[in-house]
């Protein structure tokens, strides 16, 4: 007899637990406010979708005079675990005819970057920063190789040095 009772108790218990699960899904079915989906391409125009610290890409901030902080010392290149940074320097004539080493091209291979942040952390002059752009899709892989210093830009400290000297 106890077997029969257990048999029906099992069935009732099963139905009860199943109904418990159905209550959860039913509750969410009836509460469309709980929807968490963000409709991506549209939402870009409505609100900010990434945080300020988001690691989108490595950028080199330039000020209004098209000047940056990079001295071309090459520490970031040395620290980069993947070789995604290449620094090409050139020599220009500076004060009193001496040649000074300045940055020519700060090449950044986005395709190789793992976003570890070491280059930004170790930069002695805070020349690099995180950019929040994350839409990196391009049709050609070569477009992922970027030159971070803008054409015609120069090192900010160079003027200061000159000013200090004069």
């Amino acid at each position, binding site marked *: 007899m106890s077997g029969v009772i257990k048999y029906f108790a099992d069935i009732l*218990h*099963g139905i009860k*637990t*199943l109904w*418990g*699960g159905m*209550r*959860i*899904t039913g509750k969410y079915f009836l509460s469309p406010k709980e929807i*968490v989906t963000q409709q991506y391409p549209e939402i870009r125009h409505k609100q900010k979708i*990434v*945080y300020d*610290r*988001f*690691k989108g890409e490595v950028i080199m901030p330039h000020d209004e005079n098209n000047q940056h902080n990079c001295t071309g010392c090459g520490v970031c290149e040395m*620290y980069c*675990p993947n070789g995604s940074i290449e620094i090409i320097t050139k020599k220009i004539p500076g004060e009193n005819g001496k040649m000074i080493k300045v940055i020519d091209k700060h090449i950044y291979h986005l395709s190789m970057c*793992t*976003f*570890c*942040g*070491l280059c930004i*952390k*170790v930069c002695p002059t805070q020349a690099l920063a*995180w950019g929040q752009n994350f839409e990196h899709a391009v049709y050609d892989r070569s477009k992922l190789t970027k030159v971070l210093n803008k054409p015609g830009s120069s090192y900010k400290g160079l003027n200061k040095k000159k000013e200090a000297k004069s």
Partner: protein
Amino acid sequence: MDTKLKNYIVKENGDIILNMGPQHPSTHGVLRLEVVLKGETVKQVVPHIGYIHRGIEKMCEYDTYKQIIHLTDRMDYLSAHMNNEAVCLLVENALGIEVPERVKYIRVVLDELTRIASHQLWWSAYGMDLGALTAFFYGMRDRERILDIFEESFGSRLLHSFNTPGGLMHDVHPNFQKHTMEFVKYFRKKLPEYHQLLTDNVIFRNRTQGIGVMSKETAIAYGVTGPSGRGSGYSCDVRKIAPYGVYDQLEFEEIIYDEGDSFARYMVRMKEIEQSLNIIEQAVDKITDGPYTAKVKPIIKLPEGEYYQRVETARGELGVYVVSDGKKFPYRMHFRSPNFNNLFVLNTIAKGHLIADLVAISGSLDLVIPDIDR
């Protein structure tokens, strides 16, 4: 098929060999299981791995200790923070660096947040393995809140290479504590729904209870650690047996279930989420003001010798073994990854079960394939 290559398979007449993976919905990555079936009954499971072997151990021999951090992220991507911490703790212990109190508590909070996020993802995926597709979305929905906390502070959601030997890469966001507490409050409300939807469900219980029983002896012999080991009634929580960080100053329980079946492993993880929430509540208040990193030389050179550091990741015991020859690169670096050991017990415990159970068992072991392949 070349029979010489296949001598590891014991096949009788009428058996069929089924390849599950490398592209299969339930192997969670590129794991290939060669299953010998008699009807639907599993007779032998031969795991094949190496599809995403990246040679991290070899790469480590060419990287400085600071550069290694970002490689460890990519082993067990779901416990990225714990992996980072393992290497950092090893270097800190070897050099005798005293890490600021603030960092220690932040690390604990992050450890536990990562653990919860990992268990949530596992819960979602386990539901999906068993056919409850809605569970997947609920787990992911709540995990998103943790990832938002991560993104706000570290800029990335999963692989945040945030630890560095001596402390953290940069300070956490000012809102970190507030948002973490908000999450704890939110998630305490949602957790009962998880139980109502899946844990109590009679179908779910029938699918997991008594399935894939792993005895304590098997677990120890095969080196199974983490929640999978604790589900077999064997205490293997590194946070308790060899405390690191500030775990010895926090109150939490080590969850142990004696049954050793899939359901026990499931329950261990679900209870661990609760414990992690407790730990976070304790630790968040103790995050004091202070520096976010200790003073460390720009180039770290470990003294000559061998080092070993154990930490508890979301999946078990991660061991980092370093042989240093005094240079800035490690001479040899080896990771004892928890998943590697957890995977190979599969053949022992899945034998004699049905193919649907194989999915339930391998799901309950919570395998992350990049950690196995390294």
